[in-house]
């Protein structure tokens, strides 16, 4: 009996199916690839990605893309970049492993910061996905910086009501008082458990008998030696308690010092209620330029954190949210393998781009990007980017090879016309003109060091007409209007979650001295007044607590010292009498 391997009736429909699939691929593959590229790009960057034309040439391993536009994730009507044409050479075989390996991309006609008609932000509006979470995190990070505010609109100093419940010294004093009482009880309990009374009484009685004893009264001599041993052990226990009391007393003293710190914090808090203008030059610099300086740090941090999410170090399986579909998305788990290809790798990209595209003579630059990969540990080399030109130097390295990722970057851009902006708190508008900007950034693990600087030699100042007639406004105007140079530098350093921000400019000193001259006395008087109010509120609480702490400490130490003195005296008398009775003879 012959076995039928094929059912020929089914082969026909199968062939039709294959032909149909081929025709559908021919008709729709480019459109599907274009749509999916837009979707994935938008999801990754948190900003709309648009592609005018995409053609897949799988046979030759080539993808051609025209009219690529990537919107800015931060600014509503601005593009991050546009590209006229991108040609990518792919490795076809890794596609069967669902891995995208791009050997080379040639990008022509890149333009940055071009305007757009519609709001291209996605993550900023939805807050969803990895990009949405990273954007929210970086926004929260940027909002932590306490930027001093220059209040020059009226030049008056106002004092808001001071709520005692918001002072930290009062609860701290109450806590310290309770702590002192608790220490007193604990020391008394420890002292009672020593049970020194019977030991001392017994030793005193033994001493009395020893005074009447002779050298042949061996029982009394032996009893005296036992009493000395008991006294020594009692002294050891007292020494141990003494150490405990000393430690506790030091802690209570630290608590008192904490009260002083809390009082200083309360002074600062009360001072913040005054809405005092700042007279310190660094604070003036921060008030004027910190809002503008934090933005570039925030944006660079956004991309660095995205890189850390998409290019994590190490080789462990990683679960990410699966693609959205009608059924539950689930999670996609990736399993990197040593000496295997990464899931995504762009070996090299040659970039050709324009700066000042709208000017009569746009400047053409060239850049190179290597080693952009989803699995840096597999690829084994960091991602590098460099671009140079007449007025531009950019370099960046994303090194996620080891457990502690290191991201560094630097850029110097000259001849850029920065937009004019209102200087916060000051009735002035500053037009920096053609300026040179510098940005340096290093994020090593969770430690950040960054620097942003703007330099311009032809700034223009415009006076706000609404405030032109105020005294302070006039003073500030006379101070800065003759200054043609602008030199602003912002530095960020420290732990990423709470770094220190320092901003300085060449205007700080001039504005600060003017402010101090006009408002200094008024501010000092107001500051003294608010300090007195804080003192009045907290002295009633702090004074008794301070006295109680000192009393507890003194009592504890005196009690220990007194008992220790009695023990020492009795031991000394017993040993002295023993020597007298024995006349220098040592008994076994």
């Amino acid at each position: 009996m012959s076995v039928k391997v094929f059912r020929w009736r089914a082969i026909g429909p199968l062939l039709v199916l294959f032909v149909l699939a081929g025709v559908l691929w021919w008709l729709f593959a480019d459109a599907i690839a274009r749509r999916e590229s837009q979707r994935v790009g938008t999801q990754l960057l948190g900003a709309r990605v648009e592609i005018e034309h995409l053609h897949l040439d799988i046979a030759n391993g080539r993808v051609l893309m025209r009219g690529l536009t990537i919107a800015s994730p931060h600014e509503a009507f601005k593009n991050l970049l546009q590209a006229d044409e991108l040609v990518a050479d792919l490795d076809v075989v890794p596609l069967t492993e669902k891995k995208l390996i791009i050997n080379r991309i040639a990008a022509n006609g890149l333009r940055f910061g071009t305007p757009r008609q519609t709001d291209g932000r996605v993550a900023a509006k939805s807050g969803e996905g990895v990009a949405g979470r990273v954007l929210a995190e970086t926004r929260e990070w940027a909002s932590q910086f306490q930027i001093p505010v220059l209040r020059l609109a009226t030049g008056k100093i106002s004092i808001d009501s001071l709520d005692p419940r918001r002072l930290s010294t009062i609860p701290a004093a109450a806590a310290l008082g309770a702590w002192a009482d608790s220490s007193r009880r604990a020391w008394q309990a420890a002292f009672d458990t020593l049970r020194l009374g019977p030991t001392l009484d017994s030793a005193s009685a033994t001493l009395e008998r020893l005074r009447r004893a002779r050298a042949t009264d061996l029982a009394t001599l032996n009893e005296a030696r036992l009493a000395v041993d008991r006294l020594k052990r009692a002294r050891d226990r007292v020494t141990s308690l003494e150490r405990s009391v000393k430690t506790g007393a030091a802690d209570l003293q630290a608590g008192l010092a904490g009260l002083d710190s809390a009082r200083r914090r309360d002074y600062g808090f009360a001072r913040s209620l005054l809405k005092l203008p700042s007279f310190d030059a660094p604070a003036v610099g921060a008030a004027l330029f910190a809002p503008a300086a934090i933005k570039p740090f925030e944006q660079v941090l956004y991309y660095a954190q995205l890189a850390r999410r998409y290019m994590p170090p190490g080789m462990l399986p990683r679960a990410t949210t699966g693609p959205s579909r009608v059924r539950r998305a689930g999670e996609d788990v990736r399993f990197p393998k040593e000496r295997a290809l990464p899931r995504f790798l762009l070996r090299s990209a040659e970039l050709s781009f324009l700066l000042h595209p709208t000017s009569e003579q746009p400047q053409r630059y060239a850049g190179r990007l290597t080693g952009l990969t989803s699995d840096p540990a597999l690829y084994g080399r960091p991602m590098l980017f460099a671009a140079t030109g007449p007025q531009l130097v950019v370099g960046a390295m994303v090194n996620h090879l080891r457990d502690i990722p290191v991201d560094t970057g630097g850029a110097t851009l000259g001849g850029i016309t920065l937009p004019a902006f209102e200087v916060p708190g000051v009735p002035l508008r500053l037009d920096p003109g053609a300026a040179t900007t510098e940005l340096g950034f290093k994020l090593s693990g969770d430690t950040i060091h960054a620097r942003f600087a703007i330099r311009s030699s032809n700034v223009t100042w415009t006076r706000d007409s609404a405030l032109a007639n105020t005294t302070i406004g006039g003073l500030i105007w006379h101070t800065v209007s003759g200054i043609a140079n602008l030199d602003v530098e912002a530095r960020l350093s420290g732990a990423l979650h709470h770094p220190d921000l320092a901003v300085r400019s060449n205007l700080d000193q001039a504005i600060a001295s003017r402010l101090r001259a006009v408002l200094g006395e008024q501010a000092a008087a107001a500051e003294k007044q608010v300090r007195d109010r804080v003192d009045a509120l907290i002295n009633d609480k702090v004074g008794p607590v301070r006295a109680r702490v000192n009393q507890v400490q003194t009592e504890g130490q005196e009690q220990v010292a007194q008992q220790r003195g009695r023990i020492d005296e009795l031991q000394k008398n017993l040993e002295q009498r023993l020597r007298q009775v024995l006349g220098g003879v040592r008994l076994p």
Partner: protein
Amino acid sequence: MLNVSFAGGLLGWALFVPVGFLLDPLFDWIGHSLLLAPSLRGLWTSLYNTPIIPLTNFNNTVVLGSLVFALVFAVPLFFALRWAVARYRVTVGERVRQSRFYRAVTASKVYNVYKMFRP
């Protein structure tokens, strides 16, 4: 080639798609447990780095969970359904075959098309 009743396939698809939706959380849990089990990491890593296999999306928790669930329940379901079909044929089936609706369908041209796919 496998002999499968076209009508049976369609009926199964219509019946079990909603069940699939309902059981997605269970499939997700099963897939998550399996894919992230340390003892199976070597197997999944090998499969993930083998050509063609990643295209099956086996590394998705819902996909793997539903596959494993289907494999586990395929044999009991086979025996249960075989018993149910036998019971249907001796009880309700004959009455359905005698019904006007059934006779109208079998007399139509649609039934001739269906017969082309009948095993």
